[in-house]
């Protein structure tokens, strides 16, 4: 195989170094402050946090599983009226950052806080991941096999458990692990709803200890939890995927008299996951519109967009370099770098932010509190997404075209720039756009690392919520959903695939 262009290798290695440096520094700090760390970790409080975190992760994962499977099953497998509409309803929470969901709820119900509140908000925020994965695999489960099961004397529930579930279990498990990772790294919603998990405790330890080793040691525990789940996820990801195409026959379970109750149930999920909190946000925006500081709103929007654009450009350049290296050249070293970068996708943003604050303040003061430290955080956090999104269009360029181009006498470099990249460019552009929209919504790392004086929509919203000033927070949240959430939903490839498959099936 041809050697990869030197620049791709340079950028890839640089990105990988960036990716491991802060975390490495975090560990170093821990070793230095070993005693403080040991004390911190042996506090009863740490175990309380561990208990809370595990409780939340497990309960949200299970709830998201049930909600997502129920939604997927009714949308894909029954003669529900307007299944396409309910597919949209089931995925629309993806457009709303979970801290905005949390804000929406607590602005309606002042008492909305603690475990149950966090459970509800995060379950609703993560159910779409299960819905997407399970509806995709449900569409590939052979309905005829389920009918055979019934003809062999099994009730519908038994058939679901013995025939359907084993076939969707893998994708459902993978989705649930994704949910677990999401909950572990979630910061905004949990902090807003005042439930003490690791992320909130890390943030508080960071804010209120002079020796930040405490925060660092809690962060390391969190990373440990994350890595455990990540390893599990790796085992399930992509394994035993049903390749059978979607059922051509339109066989759907008759709902009959259940049509209305089921419709109400799915509508209720939609209401809980998006309708109610968004109505609250819109209402507060209107209520407070007379006192809204539109100048602030505009500045925050421009700052957000500017920062996100820069981040997307950087992430895209690095992601493209690594993708070219990995997809088109498949060297072993490239695969190693990719794996290294990929493992970062589960790193809680709060931990990355924290690590970079330490790193920046002590090792690289010249970029400390500049936009570049924030960019490094985004690079660490979103390079995995960018890499995944960029690899697909590159991999889809037919190999034959490269060979034809070179047989026509074009150099490899020219082939890359004249054939491969132009063909892949729509996918690459969509990938960059998606990265940009994801960056717009990022909260914890932005909160810790933003340059002095720079306020984004997310941080503005955040500081208003700390004062329970809902009318002040709402417009920022609303703009965030409109300019970042909804476009991201529209660009999301698996969402689009599900919509079209649900409508075709």
């Amino acid at each position: 195989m041809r050697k990869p262009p030197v620049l791709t290798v340079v950028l890839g290695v640089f990105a990988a170094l960036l990716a491991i440096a802060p975390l490495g520094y975090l560990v170093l700090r821990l070793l230095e402050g070993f005693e403080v760390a040991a004390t911190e970790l042996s506090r009863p409080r740490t175990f309380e946090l561990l208990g809370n975190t595990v409780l939340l992760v497990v309960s949200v994962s299970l709830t998201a599983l049930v909600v997502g499977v129920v939604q997927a099953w009714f949308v894909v497998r029954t003669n529900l009226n307007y299944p396409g509409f309910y597919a949209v309803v089931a995925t629309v929470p993806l457009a709303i950052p979970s801290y905005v969901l949390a804000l929406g709820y607590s602005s309606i119900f002042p008492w909305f806080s603690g475990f149950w509140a966090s459970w509800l908000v995060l379950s609703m925020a993560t159910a779409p991941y299960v819905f997407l994965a399970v509806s995709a695999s449900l569409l590939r489960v052979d309905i005829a096999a389920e009918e055979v099961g019934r003809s062999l004397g099994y009730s519908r529930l038994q058939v679901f458990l013995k025939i359907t579930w084993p076939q969707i279990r893998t994708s459902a498990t993978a989705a649930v692990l994704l949910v677990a990772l999401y909950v572990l790294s979630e910061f905004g919603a949990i902090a807003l709803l005042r439930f003490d998990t690791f992320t909130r405790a890390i943030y508080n330890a960071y804010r209120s200890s002079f020796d930040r080793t405490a925060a660092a040691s809690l962060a390391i525990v969190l990373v440990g939890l994350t890595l455990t789940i990540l390893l599990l996820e790796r085992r399930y990801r992509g394994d035993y995927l049903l390749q059978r195409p979607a059922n051509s026959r339109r066989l759907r379970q008759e709902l009959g008299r259940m049509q209305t109750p089921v419709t109400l149930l799915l509508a209720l999920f939609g209401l809980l996951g998006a309708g109610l909190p968004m109505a609250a946000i819109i209402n507060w925006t209107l209520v407070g519109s007379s006192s809204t500081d539109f100048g602030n709103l505009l500045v925050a929007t421009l700052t957000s967009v500017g920062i996100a654009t820069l981040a997307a450009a950087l992430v895209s350049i690095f992601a493209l370099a690594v993708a070219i290296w990995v997809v088109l050249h498949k060297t072993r070293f490239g695969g190693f770098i990719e794996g290294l970068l990929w493992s970062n996708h589960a790193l809680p943003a709060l931990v990355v932010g924290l690590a970079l604050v330490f790193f920046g303040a002590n090792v690289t003061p010249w970029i400390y509190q500049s936009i570049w430290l924030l960019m490094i955080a985004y690079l660490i956090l979103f390079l995995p997404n960018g890499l995944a999104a960029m690899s697909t269009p590159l991999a889809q360029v037919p190999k034959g075209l490269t060979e034809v181009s070179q047989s026509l006498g074009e150099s490899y470099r020219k082939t890359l720039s004249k054939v491969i990249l132009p063909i892949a460019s729509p996918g690459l552009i969509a990938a960059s756009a998606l990265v940009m929209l994801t960056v717009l919504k990022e909260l914890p790392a932005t909160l810790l690392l933003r340059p002095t004086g720079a306020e984004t929509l997310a941080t503005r919203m955040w500081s208003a919520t700390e004062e329970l000033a809902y009318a002040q927070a709402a417009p920022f949240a609303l703009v965030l959903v409109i300019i970042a959430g909804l476009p991201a939903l529209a660009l999301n490839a698996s969402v689009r695939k599900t919509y079209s498959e649900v409508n075709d099936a």
Partner: protein
Amino acid sequence: MKRLFAAALAAVSVLGLAGCAPSDTDGDFVVYVGRSETLIQPLIDQYFAETGVEVQVRYAGSAELAAQILEEGDNSPADVFMAQDAGALGAVSKAGYLRELDADLLNLIDPEYRAADGTWMGVSGRVRVLIYNPERVTELPSSVLDLAGPEWKGRVGIAPTNASFQAFVTALRLIEGDDVALEWLEAMKENGVLYEKNSAIVEAVESGQVDAGLINHYYWYAKGNEVGFENLNSEIAAFESQDVGNLRNVAGVGILSEDSRAKAFVEFLLSETAQQYFVTETSEYPLIEDLDPLPGLTPLDEIPAPEFDLNDLEALEETLQLIRAAGLI
């Protein structure tokens, strides 16, 4: 492709170069503000309007910023540190990062409200009060320690990450002892509902989420000014005389760098304009001699506060450890 790589290279080199701007002398003038942006930003804007000096402000909790300055050490980009309480300033001063202020500045205020070593000074005064909903709280507690009683379970709003609360706990520790303080904090884990900020506690009492809360007095005035005092559902009260719950404290300022803009900025904060701003806009107590607080406010020296040296608040680190030990943060 080449262009793309060129762009990448350019980006990387900018990334390297951008950091080279030194931040302590001729670069940005950076102020760390451990107070609410809503309260402070208008003052900063006014300063810019008067002097044309651009101020880069980083807003966060006072303790957080103190910790951050300690972490940053000599690399800190901050020129000035404005804190919500004397403790955060004291802690930074103790670590040796604050420069001694000029005597002409220090002498503008009563020695009670400044550091003994002259490394920080108060800018505005405030007192701790109990905010309560008179419909739900008919019998006022005589001491802040009474809030540990079981009848208060889940009824009291507190802000343990907030510097003013932390300063109060430091005072509690030093006056009543660590054991009493820890016991009280542990009780508050049961009785307290935790908020991030004083203003959130005011909102919570107003909306009926909690029946009472511990705040700095001016947050209640801010709410009253916003919605009209006649529309408030809450009232404020002091505890019995000398109770630690009535702690008198200052928001203050310290200088970290040699930047000449720092001293000018502190001078501005103690100018009549700024002090008047604290009086009329934030309902705080002015600290320079010629100004009076808002009519209706008990004068600062008549507050039934405990005898307490604000310099002692610098023992913030131990306080934070205690609050963390109680599981409140």
